[in-house]
């Protein structure tokens, strides 16, 4: 079928197996490393992370996509060791979780610079290693709308996606019209984009989900397990039953092959408390039983965990980036 970049090198798409498309080894906002409040015993952090990845393997999991952007705790050498020690393929991303989680040096850069940066990390390597990014992360800053910087990052990501064939994963689906307009303007088909976190509590919009899927985009039910039923859930949490019902309605509209499920869990959070007890394994231990009970077949589950991720992650033939004049013509028309 093709190939996918992992932290230990490219692998065949067929070899991805059961995949979670939106997870984190550990996430923290820039600056958190300065606060000893968040320093975890390194031996225990390693042990806990290994245990969670091993358990993922026991559930049949084979590929873990780490969606931590540049400067948010993305640690390639650590990912490489974890992958070697557990046998789990780890896919790292280039890009930024959102404009407001990028560090100052990158916040001031042009679309052209950011495009080159993402292309470099996908085709040459990340942070001086030979490990290449397998996807591009973008996202919406706090405040409910794409910021000017978010838009620059989305546009650069679209161009890098065309140039390299790598897909885009978004943090949040907030303000979807703006995001979709940028992808359109750049000529990137929406089937190269996973619009993530459609299931977060503060931002549910089922018409939006249908709009994205109807145009070929993937819709992420990918904060699964941040349940308001748990103790001390984060503000983006959702009641477990509400999320399952939301997901089932989406499948009911015939969008099984546009649905993505993931937990967005931290193996060991870097700069925030995380959610106690949450891990990628929630998918297997809680969510799959829930949706099986709701009538989802094993075949559909295989689509969700194997076929959709493989189709999405497979690097496409590089496409020429639209000439600037063409993009400007589209922009003028809009």
């Amino acid at each position, binding site marked *: 079928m093709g190939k996918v970049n992992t932290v230990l090198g490219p692998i065949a798409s067929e070899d991805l197996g059961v995949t979670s498309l939106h997870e984190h080894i550990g996430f923290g*906002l820039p*600056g*958190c490393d300065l606060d000893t409040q968040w*320093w*975890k015993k390194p031996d225990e952090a390693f042990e806990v992370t290994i245990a969670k990845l091993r358990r993922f393997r026991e559930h049949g999991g084979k590929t873990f996509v780490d969606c931590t952007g540049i400067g948010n705790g993305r640690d390639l050498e650590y990912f490489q060791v974890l992958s070697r020690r557990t046998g789990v393929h780890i896919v790292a991303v280039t890009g930024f979780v959102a404009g*407001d989680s990028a560090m100052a040096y990158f916040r001031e850069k042009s679309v052209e610079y950011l495009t080159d940066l993402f292309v470099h990390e996908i085709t040459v390597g990340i942070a001086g290693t030979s490990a290449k990014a397998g996807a591009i992360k973008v996202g919406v800053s706090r405040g409910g709308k794409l910021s000017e910087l978010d838009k620059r990052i989305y546009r650069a990501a679209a161009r890098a996606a065309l140039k390299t064939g790598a897909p885009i994963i978004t943090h949040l689906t907030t303000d979807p019209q703006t995001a979709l307009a940028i992808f359109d303007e750049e000529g990137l088909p929406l089937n190269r984009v996973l619009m993530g976190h459609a299931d977060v509590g503060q931002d549910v919009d089922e018409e939006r989900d249908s709009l994205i899927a109807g145009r070929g985009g993937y819709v992420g039910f990918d904060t699964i397990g941040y349940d308001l039923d748990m103790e001390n859930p984060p503000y983006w949490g959702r009641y477990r039953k509400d999320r399952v019902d939301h997901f089932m309605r989406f499948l009911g509209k015939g969008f099984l092959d546009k649905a993505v499920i993931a937990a967005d869990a931290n193996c*060991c959070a870097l700069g925030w408390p995380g959610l106690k007890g949450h891990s990628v394994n929630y998918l297997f231990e809680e969510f799959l039983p829930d949706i099986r009970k709701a009538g989802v077949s094993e075949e559909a589950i295989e689509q969700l965990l194997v076929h959709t991720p493989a189709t999405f992650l497979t690097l496409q033939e590089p496409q020429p980036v639209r000439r600037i004049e063409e993009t400007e013509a589209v922009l003028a028309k809009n």
Partner: protein
Amino acid sequence: MLQNQQEISTGVVRTVLGPVAAQDLGIVLINESLLSVYPGADLAPEINMDKSEIFETLKRKLNDFRRQGGQTIVDASGMFHGRDVWLYQTLSKATGVNIIATTGLGPEKLLGGYFVTPQTNPPTPWPAEKFAGLFTQEVVEGVVVPRVERSTAAGAVVSIANPEGITNEEKSLFRGSAQTARETGVVVSVQHGADAIADLELLLAEGVDPSRVVIGGVDRQTAVGSKAAFEIARRGAYASIDHIGWGSEEGYISDAERVRLVVELLEAGFSERVLLSTSAVGVAKGHPAKELAFDYLLSTFVPLLKKAGVTDEQIRVLLEENPQRVLTVDTTAALKIKEYSVAGWRQWFSPVDH
């Protein structure tokens, strides 16, 4: 004066190699940067972070400074601009120059999301008290080597405002810095926003003594126009003429005008409230830095002062006595600085609870 001399003779300054008697600091540059990394630049593929090259460049520049008679330098860039305390320790040993590391943050546009858009709803930026907690720990417990250890104590708390005007978040930074100075006895030194006196008042409102406050950037054209340096000194704080070598293209007065400013401050009786420095950057990564060596002040500016009639004794007060007094930790402060031990690292790591 005698009383001041006695204070100095018993005072201690916190360098990257530990406590040093204030009078052993010699000539001090109070506001410089050794390694200055624009936040995030070290993660960009086009930036070369070869530590051996960085070391060699800084070593050469510090040796040039020492050859001109300089003995101490304050790395006034705070905690988030590439501060590398291990590098500074090695440099200090290799060159004999005392190096003082600082805690503090700013300006706001360079802060990380952890401080500005935390993962809470709404994403309330950090208040002054949280910044004070972060900075105070860097003085009392030692500066962080991120996720590895706390090293020797920060010798000052430094925060920087947007020169166009201090932002709300920068006000929190300044107030937090003043609280740390008050609690720990180190000096608070700031690069002011648009209004030096308003920023001074912001700091003093936290209960820090004026003699423990340095207002930097008073040789900016706007600050000179409002005679800020005189008012700062009149209130008992330090006016830091710390962009020597900079000029009108950067918004500063020329060296010739700077000499006049120094002479006028001396004539007004403020010799004990004026500091001199150059805001030079030893090695800049990810941002353009002015070509200015650490020896510029001694080799070029001091001769200009002498030519204008400033005496050797006055120069000694400006370059030695004043910064030594400023950097001396006030031992009457409530919190006491703990000594660094390489074996103490474990205490900074908490268990993984899930």
